[in-house]
């Protein structure tokens, strides 16, 4: 049986320092954990004091020897590690810490029925021994500092205490600042302000998500405002969650550490509130970044508003007015050498031309007039400076959606015509074969038609078959136009999503201190019987997982074989914008929490800090 001993690396320098002494290693061992060495002391100090459980002497080393001698005849293996500094929130974790609350959105795609066999296998009695020794060891390791402090408190004679004057002065000054009356006034004022803002944000969010007219699904601007409102609602909750556990870094826990039960203090670990900490500061940082980004781009756009509006006027005028008009006219005159039905094509092209002219006069023309464009750009850039780049971008997306509204109507009209034509064709084809669609039983049944029914049906079928290419050409043209506008909208919305939900904080933590975002552990072999325990940071691809999922969902809606089938059948694309971006909302709770529930918790908490 192998016994593992955890050996902190900072004790190696202490070992060199005391090299000319007989040393003993003192370890702590709680119920169902392994031994973790707390300290190395010279043996003469231990002769006066006896150690009681859970502390014990695990090994001895005489002066001049190279290796430690451990007690009984078992085989020992030392695992060396650097002690995680809980004050800066470093800790070990066996699984990657969850950066987002992906439980609500992503797991619905996993089909539970596929894994029933696997679950049955896992529940076999052979696999029922749950050996979580390593987990308990790691929890013990994470609280190493607290254990060390309580050990020092209990056995004073083994250590020399050094008085840190500057630290004591710092704490005295901090205590004095806290108890001033100015701080009381400021804190009550802040609490009232926060509560009122949250109330406003909550009402805005519920208005935008009203069940009957879901404004969030229609407009990107509404979605952006809704996101900000929900973030504001969630801020106090996150702040409370983080600061309730803030005491862990500053004072030793109140639980008696010499008790044998190691499961009592699991809740003190930072693992629980750490994702909220990361999310909170990430949101704050992203909002500030957003505003600065908006300021930069806004000022650029404001300065060059004239040139930009001139170019835009020409480009949009061409693509939304002249180009559809030209192609529609050409479609009625045998495009690409394909001879279409002349009367029908003429009728369609006159219809669409009329609508293009009407929309041009009514809204497209005035909207892209140079002066109006200039004015619009100026207003948008100023708004972007105040509210952030995402706000400005969402206004632009909505403006673009209104501009291309006539293309949307064309697509719907032509798709409806095409779809009806296909359905009638199918039904008449069944009539030609002598069958009929039975709606009650949802199947094709044999039917006895009279002769004139058959004749008329067949004639209509032939007419519709020959008219199909004409309708198809118009439908394809307008569908491609609509796809292009959708692509532009998706592109802009992806930029907004990037600005809103970039995992900036996690990336910077990964650069600065990888031990603060643990994503597993690594054990390397250093020599015979020696292992090295290191924390493995979260992989960068993991941090971007919500985006990858979002891209896959978008691909599924807009670019997959399902889309081709929809196009072929003439069905429209319907997207529920809220559901699509739900995955990015995963850092927030699914419904905003009402401030009234915890309002009374906020004010005493801030007052309690002094």
């Amino acid at each position, binding site marked *: 049986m192998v016994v593992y001993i955890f050996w902190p690396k900072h004790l190696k320098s202490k070992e060199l320092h005391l090299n000319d002494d007989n040393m003993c290693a003192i370890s702590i061992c709680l119920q169902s954990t392994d031994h973790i060495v707390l300290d190395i002391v010279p043996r003469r100090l231990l002769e006066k004091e006896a150690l009681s459980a859970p502390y014990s002497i695990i090994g001895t080393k005489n002066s001049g020897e190279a290796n430690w001698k451990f007690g009984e005849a078992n085989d020992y293996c030392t695992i060396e590690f650097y002690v995680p500094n809980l004050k800066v929130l470093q800790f070990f974790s066996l699984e990657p810490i969850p950066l987002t609350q992906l439980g609500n959105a992503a797991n619905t795609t996993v089909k539970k029925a596929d894994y029933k066999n696997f679950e049955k296998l896992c529940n076999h009695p052979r696999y029922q021994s749950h050996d979580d020794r*390593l987990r308990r060891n790691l929890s013990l390791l994470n609280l190493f500092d607290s254990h060390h402090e309580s050990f020092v408190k209990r056995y004073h004679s083994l250590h020399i205490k050094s008085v840190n004057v500057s630290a004591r002065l710092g704490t005295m000054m901090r205590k004095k600042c806290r108890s001033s009356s100015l701080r009381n006034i400021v804190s009550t004022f802040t609490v009232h302000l926060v509560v009122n803002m949250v109330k406003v944000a909550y009402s805005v969010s519920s208005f935008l998500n009203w069940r009957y007219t879901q404004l969030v699904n229609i407009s990107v601007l509404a979605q952006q405002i809704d996101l900000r409102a929900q973030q504001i609602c969630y801020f106090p909750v996150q702040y409370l969650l983080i600061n309730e556990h803030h005491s862990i870094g500053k004072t030793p826990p109140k639980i008696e550490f010499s008790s044998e039960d190691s499961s009592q203090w699991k809740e003190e670990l930072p693992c629980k509130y750490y994702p909220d900490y990361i999310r909170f500061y990430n949101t704050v940082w992203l909002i500030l970044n957003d505003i600065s980004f908006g300021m930069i781009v806004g000022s650029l756009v404001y300065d060059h508003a004239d040139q930009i509006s001139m170019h835009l006027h020409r480009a949009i005028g061409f693509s939304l007015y002249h180009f559809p008009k030209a192609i529609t006219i050409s479609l009625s005159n045998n495009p690409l050498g394909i001879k279409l039905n002349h009367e029908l094509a003429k009728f369609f092209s006159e219809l669409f031309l009329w609508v293009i002219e009407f929309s041009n006069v009514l809204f497209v023309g005035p909207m892209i007039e140079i002066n109006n464009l200039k004015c619009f750009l100026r207003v948008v850039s100023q708004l972007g400076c105040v509210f952030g780049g995402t706000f400005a971008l969402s206004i632009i997306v909505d403006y673009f959606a209104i501009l291309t509204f006539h293309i949307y109507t064309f697509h719907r009209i032509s798709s409806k015509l095409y779809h009806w034509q296909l359905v009638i064709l199918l039904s008449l084809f069944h009539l030609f074969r002598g069958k009929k669609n039975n709606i009650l039983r949802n199947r094709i049944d044999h039917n006895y038609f009279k002769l004139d029914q058959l004749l008329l049906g067949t004639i209509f079928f032939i007419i519709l078959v020959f008219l199909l290419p004409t309708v198809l050409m118009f439908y394809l043209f307008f569908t491609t136009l609509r796809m292009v506008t959708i692509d532009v909208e998706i592109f802009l919305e992806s930029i907004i999503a990037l600005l809103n939900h970039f995992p900036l904080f996690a990336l910077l933590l990964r650069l600065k201190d990888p031990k603060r975002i643990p994503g597993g552990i690594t*054990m390397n072999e250093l020599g015979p019987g020696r292992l090295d325990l290191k924390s493995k940071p979260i992989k960068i691809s993991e941090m971007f997982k919500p985006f990858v999922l979002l891209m896959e969902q978008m691909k599924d809606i807009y670019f997959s074989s399902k889309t081709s089938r929809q196009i072929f059948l003439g069905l429209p694309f319907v997207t529920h914008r809220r559901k699509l971006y739900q995955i990015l909302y995963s850092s927030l709770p699914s419904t905003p929490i009402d401030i009234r529930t915890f309002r009374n918790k906020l004010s005493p908490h801030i007052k309690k800090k002094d």
Partner: protein
Amino acid sequence: MSIIESISLEPLMRQRYSLEIHQNSNGGILRITMVPTWNTNKNAMNLLIVALGTITGIFTLARYVQLSNTGQLFSIATIFFLLSLIFRRPTMETLTVLANYGVQIRKVRGLAFLPRSFNRHWFAETEFIPRDQVVDVVINEGFVRGFQVIFYLAVLVKESTKLRLLFAVCKHVFSLTTRALY
């Protein structure tokens, strides 16, 4: 103190591998490494390809494209970098079994021109599966490239939708791993 065995696998496999097994004297740590034979040869070939590619890149740039000194240096560096990312050392996979603690899989696929210890330190991808997540180590049969049946070793992990595959080996490794883990 440690047992080292080298086993050559079936001659039918196109790429031959040899297995190195190290075990601690007390049975606590078992480390199994899959080393491709001709490892050094393959590496030398990849290194040669990288060097040749860079030199041809330098010549074509000097002849056809006019760039400033820093521009040339930059483009040579980019070519070298890209080539060394494509032509790498052959993968070496190591399975470490710690008694009662878990299983660790480590894949090293470093760059061709760096020494082995450097690669092992900087380019290793490790994955540690703790003992309470491991359900079992199994041997499965599967179809590869249409109709060929191979045996592969895999770890069943609780709360996961995929098998963690280990290297394709024979039953000898399987029995050693189970004895070491339990």
